[in-house]
C-alpha cells in the first residue's frame, strides 16, 4: 500500500510537469506528437528508476560533501548507456529525440529526486518513487504531445481524427508548445485546487 502511495504521489500530487515545473526543456521540445512525447517520458523514466535505485544503494557510503558530484556521475552513466542502447536498437527514435537524450543529464527531475527522495529512502521505495515520478512525467508529455498533434495535424498517435488540412500547424511548431502547456497547466491547477 505504501508503495502505491509513493507512485500516486509522483503521478498526481507532485507531478513533475504540472506541479513542480521541472524538466521543461524536453517537455516542450519533444512533444510534437504523442508518440515522441511518450518515448521521451519513458526514456527519462528508465534513467530515473536506475539512478534513484543506485543513489539509494550508495547513500550510506558516500560522504555528504561529495554526494552531488557522485549523483551526477551516476546519472550521466545511465544516460550515456541509454544513449548507446538507443542508437543501436532504436536508431530512428534516437534521431528524432536527438540532443534531448544526452540532456536528460541536466533534467532537474533526476538530481531533484536523488537529493529529495533516494538519498533518504531504501532501494525499493526509491524505485517506486522513480516509477511514480517517471509515470507522471510520461503521462504529462504524452498528453501534451497528443493535444499538439490533435490540434496541429488532426491525428492522435498517428491515427487520423479529422483531415490534416483543418489543423493549425502552429500547435506543432514552437509557439504551440508553450501555449498548449500553459493551457493544460491551468486546467490541472483548476481541478487540483478546487
Amino acid at each position: 500500500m505504501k508503495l502505491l502511495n509513493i507512485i500516486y504521489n509522483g503521478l498526481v500530487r507532485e507531478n513533475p510537469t504540472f506541479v513542480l515545473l521541472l524538466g521543461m526543456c524536453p517537455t516542450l521540445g519533444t512533444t510534437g506528437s504523442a508518440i515522441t512525447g511518450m518515448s521521451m517520458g519513458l526514456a527519462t523514466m528508465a534513467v530515473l528508476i536506475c539512478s534513484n535505485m543506485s543513489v539509494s544503494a550508495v547513500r550510506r557510503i558516500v560522504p555528504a560533501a561529495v554526494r552531488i558530484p557522485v549523483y551526477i556521475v551516476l546519472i550521466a552513466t545511465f544516460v550515456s548507456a541509454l544513449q548507446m542502447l538507443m542508437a543501436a536498437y532504436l536508431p530512428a527514435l534516437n534521431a528524432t529525440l536527438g540532443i534531448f537524450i544526452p540532456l536528460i543529464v541536466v533534467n532537474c527531475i533526476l538530481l531533484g529526486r536523488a537529493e529529495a527522495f533516494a538519498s533518504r529512502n531504501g532501494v525499493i521505495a526509491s524505485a517506486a518513487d522513480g516509477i511514480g515520478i517517471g509515470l507522471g512525467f510520461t503521462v504529462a508529455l504524452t498528453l501534451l504531445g497528443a493535444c499538439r498533434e490533435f490540434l496541429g495535424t488532426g491525428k492522435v498517435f498517428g491515427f487520423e481524427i479529422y483531415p490534416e488540412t483543418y489543423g493549425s500547424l502552429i500547435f506543432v511548431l514552437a509557439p504551440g508548445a508553450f501555449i498548449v502547456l500553459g493551457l493544460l497547466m491551468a486546467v490541472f491547477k483548476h481541478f487540483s485546487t478546487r
Partner: protein
Amino acid sequence: MLAMILVLTSVGILSGLILGWVHSLTEGPVEEAARRARIEAISQVLPPFDNDPSASVVDISVSGQPKPFRVYPATEGGRFVGAAVESYSMDGFSGEIDIIYGFDAEGAVVDYHVMHHAETPGLGAKMEQWFRMPEGHRSVIGLNPATARVAVTKDGGDVDAITAATITSRAFLGALREAHEAFEIYKKQQNS
C-alpha cells in the same frame, strides 16, 4: 578527505568501466543499424536489380561541391539499370540535409529517400513525401534533370515548392541537380 577522494575515484572508474562495456556491446549493432538503413534506402530508390550496389560504390567529386557524392551502381543480369546517389545540401532551413536519389539508366528520377534532416516539422519536413505526390507539379519522380528544369516554379523551374517552405524545396532540388551531375560524371567514367 581520503574517503571523499576514494569514493569519487571509484565511482568514476566504475562508471567508465560500465560505459566502456556498454559501448563495446552496442558498437556492432550501431554500425549494423546504419548500414541496414542505407541498404534499405538504396533498394527503395532503385529500379529492380540483382547485384549488390554497395559492393561497387564509387565516390564522385563534383566541382564546386565540398564533399564527394557516393554513387551506388545497380545492374540486372550484368546490364546497367541505374544508380543511387547519396547527395546532400548545406542550404537547408536548419542544417544539412542528406538524401539518396535513385536514377534509371537514362538519368530519370526513380525515387528518393531523405536520410537525415532537421527541417521544421509540418513545413520543410514535408519533403519526405511532397516530391512524390501526384498533385500539381509536386512530383520529381520520372523527371530527368538533363531535360526538365529541376527548380521551383518561383525560380523558373518545373516543380511546385512545398507550401511555405521554399528554402527547403530549393535545397532539395539543388541536391537533386548535384546528384544527377554526379550520376552523369559516373556514366561518362564508365563508358570511357
